[in-house]
Each structure stands twice: as structure tokens, then as C-alpha cells.
């Protein structure tokens, strides 16, 4: 949206907003409208000049503002905000409904009451065309883990947990300082400062095998920043390895499930992709499991290791069959 397209809705909302809050500090109002205090002053000056056209000065919107605060005393008939547009009602109601169906996100009853009130106030604006289901799958054990994690967050306590790291196929004990719980692509995660790794880490809730709230307070260092998950969970890094793969049609899902680059369509519905991976043992497990549906073009060492692992496993199977 351009600045001027943003400005009109803001001007229209400003008068009723200020009427509801006489004497509000300008800084606070500016923060609510997500503009600078300087911009808000400019808006107020423009509003001050508006009002009933062609009539006397008494019909103008009357705004008194001093150094820091502002009060509207005459509103020229603009005391109520505009009703929600279809797009606005949709964005809000769809999000609320998605939250209502998601375990542990917020008070489901409060969300249902909110949906009813907003539908009522929005009048004829009907939401349609978009629906969102976060579809979080939670096994009974994960529900317990999430509840424990949330209680620690609320109380501001540290956690000790047993965590399964899929990339290394390892189970470890960690003490962490919880920061938040978030849902990405249908899965719940705990974001926390990991004292062992001395870094912010995302822990999948369904990989926390045991968890215990400690008496000591959570103390993430001040420089611990939440991870930006807006482009997905995987972050390309310089120390990662890179593989060039050809996916058969049955393995195309890999390109949707994992972040791949340089996608090249080949004949027969095959796909050539570049895939980054942090841990070779994880990559070997993934590719072994895909059987013949993936060809590794490079690196050669990865292809060799794969084949060696498959041969070793087949030898073991044959021994076992011979023994029984």
C-alpha cells in the first residue's frame, strides 16, 4: 500500500479513537496507529482543518493538543469508526476461527465470544473464500509436554528436558530458558535459550521425551533473540554441505518438504534439485529410506557412503535369514 492509501483509513479512524480516549499522550496514539509521533501531528493538523464543508468555523472538528497530549471536543459527526470491509472481517475472523480449533493457543471460549461480537458489529461484511486450519497433531504425551512447557513460560521458570535430536539421531539432557511456544507448519515448537549449546534453539514439542520445571528462574541472556521463522525453519548456512539430487516422481515430495534450490524439471516427471544439509548422517538416513527414488549426482562421497551402508544392511539381513 502507498502512504496516501494508508493515510485515509487512518484519518477516518483517528477521530473516534481520540474521542474514546480524551487527553491521550500523542506518543501512545502514534504507537497504536503504527506511525511516528511526527506523522500523527501532521494528521491532526489536517483533521483540524476538516469538518462540515461550506459552513461556519463551529462545524469544524475541534481538536486541542498541547505538547504531548490530544483531545477531540467536536467531531463533526464522525464519532464512530467505519465498519469492517469484507477483507478486514475475513482476515480477523478466519484467524480467530483457526486459533479456536488449535489446542493450547488461547482460551477457546474467549475466541468464540469474540467471533460472535465481531460478526455482529461487522454487520453485512461476510467472511468467505479463505479458511485456515493449523491442524496441529498432538499425541497425548505431547499435550502433557506442552502444558508443562506453557506453565514454565507463565511462571518464568527454567526447564530440564530429555530431547531427541533427529539430525544426529541422539538423545540428550538439556537445561533451557524458555522464550515462547510457536506453531510452524502444523507442529508445535518451544523456542528457548539452550544452556548447553549457548544459543537460541527451536525444540519440537513431540521430540521432548521428558520435561521438568525447575525452581530456578528462566534467564535467557539479553541478547537472545527470537528466530525469524517467516521464511521457514531451515536457514542456509555457509558450513552446510550441498547435494545435487535427481528425484523420481515418487520422491518429488522431498522438494516440497525440505528446502531445495535450483529446481530443474527433467523428463518423466523427474526433478533435479540442490539440497543443503547440516548433518551427513541425517542425509544418509533420509536417502537410504528413499530407496531407488533418488539418485545422488554429487558429492561422490555421499553416494559412496549410501551404497556402503545399503550393502552392509543387506549383508546383515542375509546373515539373519541364514541363521533362522
Amino acid at each position: 500500500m502507498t502512504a496516501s492509501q494508508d493515510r485515509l483509513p487512518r484519518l477516518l479512524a483517528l477521530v473516534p479513537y481520540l474521542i474514546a480516549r480524551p487527553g491521550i499522550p500523542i506518543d501512545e496514539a502514534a504507537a497504536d496507529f503504527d506511525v511516528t509521533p511526527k506523522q500523527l501531528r501532521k494528521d491532526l493538523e489536517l483533521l483540524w482543518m476538516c469538518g462540515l464543508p461550506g459552513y461556519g468555523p463551529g462545524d469544524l472538528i475541534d481538536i486541542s493538543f498541547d505538547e504531548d497530549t490530544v483531545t477531540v471536543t467536536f467531531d463533526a459527526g464522525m464519532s464512530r469508526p467505519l465498519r469492517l470491509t469484507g477483507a478486514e472481517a475475513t482476515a480477523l475472523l478466519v484467524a480467530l476461527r483457526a486459533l479456536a480449533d488449535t489446542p493450547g493457543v488461547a482460551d477457546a471460549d474467549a475466541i468464540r465470544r469474540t467471533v460472535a461480537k465481531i460478526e455482529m458489529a461487522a454487520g453485512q461484511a461476510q467472511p468467505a473464500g479463505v479458511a485456515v486450519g493449523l491442524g496441529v497433531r498432538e499425541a497425548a504425551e505431547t499435550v502433557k509436554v506442552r502444558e508443562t512447557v506453557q506453565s514454565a513460560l507463565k511462571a518464568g521458570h527454567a526447564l530440564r528436558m530429555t530431547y531427541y535430536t533427529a539430525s544426529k539421531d541422539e538423545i540428550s539432557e538439556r537445561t533451557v530458558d524458555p522464550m515462547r511456544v510457536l506453531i510452524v507448519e502444523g507442529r508445535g515448537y518451544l523456542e528457548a535459550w539452550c544452556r548447553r549449546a549457548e544459543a537460541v534453539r527451536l525444540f519440537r514439542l513431540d521430540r521432548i521425551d521428558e520435561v521438568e520445571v525447575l525452581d530456578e528462574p528462566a534467564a535467557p541472556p539479553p541478547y537472545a533473540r527470537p528466530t525469524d521463522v517467516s521464511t521457514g525453519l531451515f536457514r542456509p548456512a555457509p558450513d552446510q554441505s550441498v547435494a545435487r539430487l535427481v528425484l523420481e516422481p515418487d520422491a518429488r515430495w522431498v522438494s516440497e518438504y525440505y528446502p531445495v534450490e535450483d529446481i530443474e524439471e527433467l523428463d518423466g516427471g523427474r526433478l533435479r534439485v540442490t539440497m543443503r544439509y547440516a548433518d551427513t548422517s541425517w542425509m544418509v538416513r533420509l536417502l537410504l529410506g528413499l530407496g531407488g527414488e533418488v539418485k545422488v549426482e554429487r558429492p561422490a562421497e555421499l553416494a559412496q557412503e549410501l551404497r556402503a551402508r545399503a550393502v552392509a544392511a543387506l549383508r546383515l539381513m542375509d546373515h539373519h535369514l541364514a541363521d533362522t
Partner: protein
Amino acid sequence: MLCLLSTRQYLSAERIRGIVPGYADAPSDDAFFRTFERDKTELRDLGIPLEVGRNSVFDTVDGYRIARRDYELGEIDLEPDEAAAVALAVRLWDSPELTGAAHGALLKLRAAGVDVDQAAPAIVESKVRTSEPAFTPLLAAVRAGQVVSFDYRRPSPAELRERTLEPWGVVSWRGRWYVVGHDRDRDAPRCFRLSRIVGEVRKIGKAGQVRRPENVDLMQFVATTGGEVSSVSTVRVWAASGRAAGVRRRAKVVGERDIRGTAGDILELELRWPDTAAGWLAGYGADVLVLEPEVLAKSVRERLVAVAEGDVL
């Protein structure tokens, strides 16, 4: 435009031209009416319909005003926990279209006197992204009620085909976007994953031609079309000592066994997805050996044989 919002009388276009500072500068009638038309459209997009009419029988031309009751937000009063739900809902979106719309709604609720504290830390944070290129044109087509066609790639069996769809809605389910509608080629309701749409979404025909059936639950449709198998089967495997932590954490140890000098445990676990289970277990190579059921052992073996014999470069 504020001038129209604060008048109760119909104002003629000429009158508006005289009052509104920007309009008076218009060099010609044409230029004025062009600007006026554009502003009327902008107002309509903001949810403010203009009313056309005359103040009295003596008026010779139509005037414009805004029916205030039609554009005002109804009374709304949210409890603190309800306002908190709104704050959370606004933060759900991570999308150029929907984040803007949600913020617009928030602005109006604040203007209506509702205090929504966005700085309060949310206990749960979730985001819905709309990064698929097909999202914007499909949502626009749904809103306009317009038929679309697009090239769609199905992974298995692999095929790339043009589809013609009467779109009913776009649905985000478990972090993936789908479009649901009436598939004209199959003559049946279908859903398509947006990430599998190749190239442009083309609009066909006029707006307003698509009628969405009354009783269709879009979310339910996508959720049940996924074809989720939930039959649970018990699997028995051998795992080398100290290896395969990922398998062990989901299993219980029911015995010990050496296989050709390698110590290990017999494990039992419940698996929900027999087919993906084969890939998962094959990934462990010689660290895991499937004992039962035989069909799973065979499936694992096939995968390993393919890797061992495949034309790996």
C-alpha cells in the same frame, strides 16, 4: 473525502468540486470527473458506499452523500480476554494481503474504543504465510467468483495437466495452501495444492459466474481429502546396542539378541503409517533389522537393494 463523511445532505458533483481543495485545481471537467470517479472507487474499497439522490424535488442534478448508518461499525465492547484473542489473531498472518487487512480491522476496533494490547507477549505464537505465487490470483478469483485454469502437477502417478476450476475458497491446512472448488474436467469437487500449480493462474470468463454451494465446509473438505491412514500396527525390530535412538524412544525393549557378533535389543513399537515406516526404518541401515511383519521387512529390503544396485553416480 472527509467532506462527504461529515455531511447529511446530498452534495452535487459541482458543489463537491467547489469545496474540496484538490478538485478545484482540476484543469478540465474531464480531469475532475476522472479524479472524482477514482475517489469514489477508493471510498467503496474502504467500505464506504456512496449514496446517490436529491435533497428535494427542486434539485436538478443528482447529489452524493454517505449513509452514515451503513458505514459505521456497530457497537462493540470486548472483555480483556477477548481483546487478547484479537491481538493474537492479528499476529497470525504473515502475508501481504491478510496482514494489512487484519491491521485495518484492528485500527477500527481501536477507534471503537477497544483496547488491544499488541505488545503483550503471546504465550503461543503461530504464523500463516502466503508465499505461494498462486495465492493472490486465486484469492482474487474466489472473491470475484471467476473460473480459473492452471497447469497442475500430480506427483504420483506423475502427470502435468491443465485443470479448469470453479474456485470456492483457498484453505490453509497444516501450513500448506489448497484451493477448493468444482473441477470442471472431473465434474466433481476437488482440492489442489498451491505449491503444485505450475506457472500462471489464468482467469476464464466473467466475474460472478461461480456459485459456491451453501453447505460446503472448505476446511473439512481439505482435512478429509488428505486420505490419512490411522490404522496402527505393531512392529518388531532388532536394533544394535546404543544405536537408532530415534527408533528406541518410540519402542519398548522386549529382549536381547546377538546377530553375527553384534549385540542388540529386540524392540516393539506401534506404527501408524506402515508405508512411510519402511523408509524411516531403512534409513537406519544395518543398525535396525525388521523382524515382523514380513511385508515391512520386504519393503525395507527393496529400498536397500535399490540403493545398493542403483546407478548411483
